[in-house]
């Protein structure tokens, strides 16, 4: 128990550091993403957009953790109602996004194969 408390304090100290690191990660990701996506031809802009759309469902991770956190904090009902809603929405985003992107890309590549 004591050890755990110590760990908490230690974490409090590095909290600020983590904040700055995360802000840094955000900036670096933005720049890397920008250059990677710059290579995508306009031909593929719709699948790119819907693929990105599917990835924005990564918030599912946040939704799961928030729900678990709420339940653990004895706010189970609120947690399950709103957290559950967030999970459903995020999963629709993820599954729907990847499904349509895959369908579109199959349409594109089907014709590519014919050429070979």
């Amino acid at each position, binding site marked *: 128990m004591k050890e755990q408390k110590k760990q908490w304090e230690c974490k409090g100290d590095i909290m600020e550091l983590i*904040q700055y690191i995360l802000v840094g990660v955000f900036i670096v990701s933005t720049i890397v993403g920008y250059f990677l996506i710059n290579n995508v031809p306009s031909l593929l802009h719709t699948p*790119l957009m819907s693929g990105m759309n599917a*990835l924005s469902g990564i918030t599912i991770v946040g939704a799961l953790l928030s729900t*678990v956190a709420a339940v653990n904090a004895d706010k189970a009902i609120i947690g*399950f109602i709103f957290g*559950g809603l967030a999970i459903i929405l995020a999963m*629709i985003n993820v599954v*729907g996004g990847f499904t349509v992107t895959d369908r579109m890309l199959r349409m*594109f590549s089907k014709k590519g194969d014919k050429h070979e």
Partner: protein
Amino acid sequence: MNNLFLMFNLPEWVDYIVSGVLILVVLIGISLMSKVKTAKLGNRLSALAMLLAIIVTLINAKIFTINNYWIIFITIILGTVLGFLWTYRIKMIQMPALVAVLNGVGGAASAIVGGFALFGIGAGTDTFSVITSMLALIIGVITFWGSLVAGGKLSNVISSKPTVLPLHKIITALLIILMLALIVDSVVGIIPNQLILLIVTVVISSLFGIVFTIRVGGADMPITISLLNSLSGVAGAIAGLATKNLLLVSIGGIIGASGLLLTQVMCKAMNRSLLDILLGKTTTGKKAEFVEEAKESQEAIEEIDPVAVLKDAKDVIIVPGYGMAIAQAQHLVKQLADKLIEQGATVKYAVHPVAGRMPGHMNVLLSEANVDYEDLYEMEDINSQFKDADVTIVIGANDVLNPAARNAQGTPIYGMPILNVDQCKNIIIFNYDLKPGYAGVNNPIYSRKQGVSLNLGNAADTLAEILKKI
């Protein structure tokens, strides 16, 4: 920090490494999206990374120790089934609206995560966490409502014309100020109750999301969709900052950048600044002068016979536009192209970056009709070829080939890069009518004296008629 680490037996760095690997997989997936042949694999890699992220999160959160954990699994399954059923058979014509609404759904999820974080659930109660929670909530809600309005406009549930409220600019400015004030309050704490703060914030951001998209018109949708795409990523990233989650921050940031880049590409292709579109400086330009000019010269036109021209054509360029999408004419276009190829002609497709209602819209529709992607040309690559082509076939496109963009100063399309269709000796146009396009500027090609054939009406009907005769 959060339960993820508190309940975790393995050291923290393992989690960071797992997140790092997953981010890397996503980055590889995205870089594979730059070529048609590898794009499918890229998308599946990203999907795999997402699946792993969900599994790792469930393990880290020690899901089976939670009371009633089955509820979480049910919601996961429910979302999966709904997402799949909704999209696996959707028609390509509905794609712009679908992309818009999916965006909004993701934004709403991020907003909820932000809302939890505001109460210290999954996040700290320090200033940084509170501000980022508020931002995630606000941006998520704006994305949600903005996307719903955009989706409504794209599927014609609500009018696709720009709706301008009285005092629109003042309302917009007021809502922005209110949102900033609410963020300040979340730290200062003038509103004593977090719940009231949450509700007021949701209401104000909802209003802003609606007000800012309701005034965007149909042809500006490619820009709006791209921007909302970016916002959904940013909402996720900021929710990640609030809950100190590496995966969310990084992937959200990548999506934010991607959407912004697309927005920039679209703006450039329309010669517009993003600010102009958001402030609604759109379509209502000067049009009177061009309208008259078109009318008086209409009698003198010597129409060419489209059937004869097509029969002799060796080098054909097809220019698709939103009209092709509305008429669902892409399959007929492909049939026409097939007939011409049978005659020994070469057929190329010239795709303007903003043709249609979302980035890459025409490419998707033509691919659906089995057009080979290697025949789809971008504007810069094909613009020099119009002058040597035997005939250009325009299908439901107007503004993107309007030569007025070169010299009609003061009109909304002035300075916009266009397809050089007017340099072609024969032009066959399949448009619904002769009215100016979305930008409200008349097209001088319609009144050209020679080498133009106008086939008015639903592009699917007029095309079918010509097809019969060839």
